[in-house]
């Protein structure tokens, strides 16, 4: 009997040991979680001026990765960029957890009000949106005019052999397919550029739908991400969709030549996208350069910006940190531009670089200019 009891005791002891072990593990995990949560805060206000924090646009992430790696090798300054989407980047900048945000669109009225203090928009590179399609038997680039694109996306042109499409594509045998419209289902800067363009060229689009990162599409199917849209297009004969120029170039998609504001037919390319930004820009650079006035500019293009606070002394930041940030951005718009073309980004036009220089020089620390 006694032996049985002691066995029982032994088992209980073992269970308890196990329990304690498990409990210890849990406490350790909980402590780690707490540490991680507080770590985010302390990291943000870290006075380690060798590390600069940024967050935002995923579109520009590949370019930033290359630029920042090179900058790190040259200067020892580490840039920690989180590619979480433009909206998220702006939110983090508003919460002052990063030094800069990156966005494919300028701040909207609500975001400006929320951030409360003046911010600076610094152009980094240009991107463009191309129309890609799947038309069996058509091996040349199709021509599209702004009104035709708008009416396709409004659901008013429903067949590929519509008279308005054949009239601008003389000599191309266009098959009689129904048009399947594809668009992005996730909110994105690509959609913002595309719908901004449609709003500018079509009064009907502007009143019925409007421009933004996510809109109420009159027709069509939504694909998640660029690969979702191009997947829809590849799989469906007669489909048309829009994707980033980079994505189309990297994946060798078929895309359309578009007539710009000056009446010229423009092929989307790095040169024609850079040209689109070579126009008179507003002093704050907050502009969608869609439907550009530039004679050889591709009309569906836009800037990606880095957004920083105009007054850099906030949250107890040091002057050294502010200087490091501005030097980095200065490098980005000059030497850093060499990485654009190899990665299929369109470098900034001369006009855009000049303006970005002026804007960077207007940043202050305690009211005094930094650069």
């Amino acid at each position: 009997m006694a032996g049985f009891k002691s066995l029982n005791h032994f088992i209980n002891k073992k269970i308890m040991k196990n329990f304690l072990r498990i409990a210890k593990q849990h406490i350790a995990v909980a402590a780690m979680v707490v540490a991680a949560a507080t770590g985010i805060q302390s990291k943000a206000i870290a006075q380690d001026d060798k590390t600069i924090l940024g967050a935002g646009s995923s579109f520009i992430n590949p370019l930033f990765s290359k630029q920042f790696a090179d900058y790190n090798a040259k200067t020892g300054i580490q840039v920690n960029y989180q590619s979480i989407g433009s909206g998220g980047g702006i939110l983090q900048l508003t919460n002052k957890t990063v030094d800069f945000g990156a966005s494919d669109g300028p701040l909207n009225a609500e975001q400006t009000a929320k951030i409360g203090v003046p911010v600076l928009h610094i152009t980094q590179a240009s991107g463009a949106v191309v129309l890609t399609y799947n038309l069996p038997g058509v091996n040349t680039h199709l021509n599209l005019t702004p009104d035709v694109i708008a009416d396709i996306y409004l659901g008013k042109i429903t067949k590929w052999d519509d008279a308005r499409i054949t009239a601008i594509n003389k000599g191309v045998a266009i098959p009689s397919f129904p048009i399947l419209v594809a668009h992005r289902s996730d909110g994105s800067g690509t959609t913002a550029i595309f719908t901004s363009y449609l709003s500018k060229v079509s009064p009907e689009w502007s009143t019925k739908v409007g421009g933004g990162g996510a809109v109420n599409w009159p027709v069509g199917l939504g694909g998640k991400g660029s690969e979702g849209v191009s997947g829809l297009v590849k799989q469906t004969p007669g489909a048309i969709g829009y994707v980033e120029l980079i994505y189309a170039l990297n994946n060798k998609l078929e895309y359309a030549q578009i007539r710009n504001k000056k009446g010229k037919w423009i092929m989307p390319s790095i040169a024609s996208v850079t040209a689109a930004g070579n126009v008179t820009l507003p002093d704050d650079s907050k502009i969608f350069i869609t439907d550009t006035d530039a004679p050889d500019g591709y009309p569906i293009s836009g800037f990606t910006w880095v957004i920083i606070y105009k007054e850099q002394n906030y949250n107890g930041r040091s002057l050294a940190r502010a200087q490091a940030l501005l030097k980095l951005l200065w490098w980005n718009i000059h030497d850093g531009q060499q990485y654009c073309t190899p990665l299929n980004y369109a470098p900034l036009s001369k006009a855009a670089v000049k303006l970005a220089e002026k804007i960077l020089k207007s940043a202050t620390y305690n009211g005094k200019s930094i650069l």
Partner: protein
Amino acid sequence: MAEAKKELKISRPYGQIRWENAFKRSLVIIALLMVVVVAGILLTLIIQSIPSLKSLGIKYLWGKTWDPINNVYGALPFLLGTLLTSFLALIISIPFSFSIAIYLGEYNPRGWLSNFLKNTVELIAAVPSVIYGFWGILVLVPIVQKLEIKLGVLPYGIGIFTASLVLAIMIIPYAASLGREMIKMVPSPLKEGAYSLGATRFEVIKNVILPYTKSGLFAGVLLSLGRALGETMAVTMVIGNTSTIPTSLFAPGNTMASVIANEFNEADHSLYWSALVELGLALFLVTVVINVIGKRIIKRFTNE
């Protein structure tokens, strides 16, 4: 032996009783923690959706337009999309999951084949949903396209029907596993009694096993439904993401979960953001309502 006895006498009263109490207390605390988490989630959803509730009111639920530019939000297309895909998936999956449950529970409960089948079915539940999405796009969509051409509807390939098919496969293991366990637990005297009265195997299944296990089978179905309601990634990839009320089974649509996943990242103004949170709240409530109804039905089954 005497020493062991001594030690036992000392450790029992203090150490062990304290241990028993501490163990019980920690169990209660951990269980209550779950309640706190669920209540916290609900509370967060409600608080964050206040701006949207205030501005849109109750008509949010039956509004048909989702227009972030003009701040008009109606959840009806997504509500319908979620319910339609989930229930359609359930209807497709039930014959498969019940067949698997009966075969593995009654005909072939042991042996390598049984184990192999059981593990394979359980593997279906372990595959990440994005993989089902890929498979859906690459394999299922072209097949559905061919079917649609034969039926004379617009050959999108993606849409409510394709999403339901993918969902159906994903939810089979839930009802099948639970059903198999339930069927295995049917007391053999009951079955033997029926056999001795001359019942055939089919008759035993129909008149003894199924009535005996129906609450368990239904619980499995409920589990499947819960999974289908909340599934996001695989559905987003094959449903077409169109914010209109689906006009047919083959039409593209959208579900609440996939709208949230798609639009949350870039929701750039507060009312838009809040409307998306409210969509989450609505999804939460739909799941609760369906669960409550399900529990009622299970209770009635077991009381009979």
